[in-house]
């Protein structure tokens, strides 16, 4: 008697488009973050010229940050953004009859982004073992 009204294709399609639009917006924001000035390479010019040697060692840390940390973070933000934008674009052009659920889109998003695994800061003894390797 009180069966809820079923949504028509038109309505489903409009909702789906709104959902995809928000995904596209999220993607654009992440791509912008990936380009942000805050992720510029660390500058070490002029540092360490007069010592002590520990400053050189610290410059090596900055070098590793520039070579590995920053490209990794930018890739994570940029690629996640690209996945959002691509998925939104891919399904925006689907015809009404082949609309899939937005849950499915987000499953793809989860799989395509993959888990970003960052280990905990090692304890001093674990760090020592890592160096020994």
């Amino acid at each position: 008697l009180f069966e809820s009204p079923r949504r028509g294709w038109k309505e489903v399609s409009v909702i789906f488009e709104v959902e995809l639009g928000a995904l596209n917006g999220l993607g654009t924001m992440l791509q912008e973050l990936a380009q942000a000035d805050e992720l510029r390479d660390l500058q070490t010019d002029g540092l360490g010229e007069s010592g002590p040697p520990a400053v050189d060692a610290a410059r090596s840390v900055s070098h590793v940050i520039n070579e590995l940390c920053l490209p990794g973070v930018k890739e994570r933000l940029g690629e996640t953004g690209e996945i959002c934008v691509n998925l939104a674009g891919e399904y925006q052009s689907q015809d009404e009859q082949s609309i899939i659920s937005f849950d499915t889109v987000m499953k793809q998003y989860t799989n395509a982004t993959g888990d970003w695994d960052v280990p905990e800061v090692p304890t001093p003894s674990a760090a020592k073992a890592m160096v020994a390797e």
Partner: protein
Amino acid sequence: MSLTKTEVYGWKPSELLVLAKMWRDLAANIEGMFGQYESRVKQVNSLFWQGEAATAALTRAQSDRGAAARLADHLERVADIAENGFHEIDAPLRRTQDAIDGAVEDGFGVTEVGLRVYIRGDVTRDEQDALEPARVSWQEQIWSGAEATALADTEVSDALNNALPGLRAAFVSPATLGSEQAAKDAQQLLDDPSGLTPDQRQRLAEAGTLTPEQLLALKSGDFVPISASQMEYMNAIARRFDHMSGEDLEAWLKNAPADARAGVASSFHLLSTKRVIASVQSDAEVPASGAPELLPRQMHQSLTRSDLATTSDDGIALNGVADNQAAARIADWSDPALQNGTGLDAAIMDAAVTYLDHQVAAERGGIVQIGEVGSVDLGGPQLYIDGAEAPADARVTEDMINAVAADRAVVGAAVAGENGQAFMTDVANHEWPDDNKTTGELYGISDPDAGEPR
């Protein structure tokens, strides 16, 4: 180490604070960005997304924020080392400077090298005796300060250098690789594999890894979703080697450190496997799934060439053998845990099956059975390997089968497949020159005589 006077006054340990501040600022910025990402998802969820989709989006954003926070922890920790290091070096350095200043104010001289305190000018023996206690006192203060400074510097340098492996491991994840990083690493591999930096080695090694869940999926024969970033990186590396034959590639990669070499080989396995999927369709740089065709082009062409083996009046010719044996040795460099139905292993196995079948034909071709008396070898067709005459029992498939033997899914498919019976007959009939080591590997037993399963 003995400091010079120039160093005592020239060293700027305060630069450690400058660098530490950069790292702390970066840590805060990274955390802030992933905080913004999470906030945006929450905002979108409240307005547009619901149910499973909203949960999926928030779960990913929160897990990334957690990863970013751990990344920031690593940066903070190394900043702690640098800041503490500043104090450890600066205090004795200042003591040394003050002692030198004091000695000079008292009229003494201090040498540039060795920081020796000496009495200036012409003095009488009596004056010298009177000054000596003060000279000795300044000398002790200067030397002990300089020694403590040098020791602190060594300790801080060691602590920072020792932090590098942990930082590299924290900074590199398959989910944060990509084509730009691959382009750099591949270029170095092409220019000089022995010159790969520890940073590049870390990326190459990491690219060929799977999480325990992904490994389980691979072993179970399920689809293995990997990140688009990892697929993009692996594909970009492989594309840079399209022009190299298997032999050239093996010779080249042999110059790379073992960890990087293993990473490249593992990447080839994953990239060649159809069940390894990236879940994206519309990114030209990211294949939607692995495939044998994504192996370096010449390597793939050689493994799948239509004339792997040909028979003519001249004899039996096996072609592409050297390249395909090299491809097998490359495949063998990988992490064996990944060898589970990979496209690379399957292609090597297919080529080996074809080679073996024709080699056995060459071996058996001239043998004629005479009733129950026995057999006589009348000389079979000539075997050619890569265009050169070869004895019928030449080593052809041993390295190939040994390389893929760890891949039980591929071995199983070869044995149970359409031509499995013929393959097993070939295996039984071939004159293995290696005391049946290869057959042992194939059947999964380490010692064929012992009959123990592996």
